[in-house]
């Protein structure tokens, strides 16, 4: 676990801290994340999937569960249980370099979004807000927010898929 923490601890802490914006809470959630990873590492097959996307997903879900709990939204500890199965990441098979290339492509695509598109992606992917919550926060119609989210995600998706195909 020390090796795992040394390699990914900083990234997982950053993702959680970005969401909850509180050091003490982030530390608690990082600890919970490593418990969850520890309990499930035996389900991960290194020949069929990559570790990092799975770890990132587990960490982000812990942060989102916490935020929804704080907001009073309906939640339970296992709300992401099904979607955290390591087997879902089997399609991520391939050299680590692919992942780095995809991340760079997505980072670049993020800069091509307009300010509002970037903001809605920040709110969905880093703060776990629903589209209705974003509509309230930005004082925009829900339909407008949905359009913004979908168009932004389309740009990012095409950037990742395009880089993976090269």
């Amino acid at each position: 676990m020390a090796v795992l923490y040394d390699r990914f601890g900083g990234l997982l802490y950053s993702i959680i801290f970005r969401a909850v914006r509180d050091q003490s809470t982030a530390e608690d959630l990082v600890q919970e994340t490593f418990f969850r990873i520890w309990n499930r590492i035996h389900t991960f097959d290194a020949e069929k999937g990559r570790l990092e996307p799975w770890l990132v997903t587990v960490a982000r879900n812990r942060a989102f569960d916490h935020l929804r709990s704080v907001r009073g939204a309906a939640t339970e500890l296992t709300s992401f249980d099904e979607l955290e199965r390591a087997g879902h990441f089997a399609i991520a098979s391939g050299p680590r370099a692919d992942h780095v290339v995809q991340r760079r492509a997505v980072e670049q695509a993020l800069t091509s979004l307009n300010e509002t598109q970037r903001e809605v992606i920040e709110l969905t992917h880093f703060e776990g807000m629903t589209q209705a919550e974003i509509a309230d926060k930005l004082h925009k119609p829900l339909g407008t927010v949905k359009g913004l989210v979908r168009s932004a995600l389309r740009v990012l998706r095409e950037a990742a898929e395009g880089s993976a195909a090269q």
Partner: protein
Amino acid sequence: MNNLDNCADFRELYELYSLGLLDASEKERIDEHLAAGCEQCRASIEQALLQNAILSGTVTLVKPPAHLRQRVLAGFGEARPRRNWFWAFALTAAACFLAAIGLFLQNRELQTEMAQATRRNALELARVADVSRILQAPGTRLVTFGPGAAPHGSVFVHAKLGIVMVAGTLAPAPAGWNYETWIVPASGAPRAVEAFTPDANGSAITIIPGAVDPNSVKAVAVSLEPAGATLQKPTKVLFAAAI
């Protein structure tokens, strides 16, 4: 979205679906579609999970506090409960498992050794996995205590599996004193269940395995007790988390 006619329409929503951020009506339609066994959409879900992970990975890196490493790693074997036989197994299993993880990350050949080590230690791991099982079990309730003040932490309660308490910011016990975990029933005297020693960073994890009747248990409490004392009631109660 009122016009979800085919898989391509759904594909637009899978990132939000896998983040749990869709409207109830949209989620319901996708659930129904997936339940019908659409393999193309199952593959799309996996692609969306990867896409979300890549996007989350673009976060600006923040250096975690130095003590967090110790705290996380301490959670895998440094708490010292009274049941020596349990933690003898736990420490052995944790050490073997940590070694296995290291091998796993070094190269594929060593990963095979990790799998073998994991199998060899399956029985020991089953014991130490009690903590994780409670944390992830459906129906586990989370109670936090002392937010923003010392000490603070979380209590995970599962009616059939037991209780896990994760505490932080605990000062070292004074010389000649020990930390003790208590179950406080709705009526009757508190019951001492677990002695523990916080790690160097003031963190500790205790597990109270077994069924918990939420109607008969009022709280989990932590106290300081004189070393060697007969534990009949808490001496110096530090905190109690109502469950």
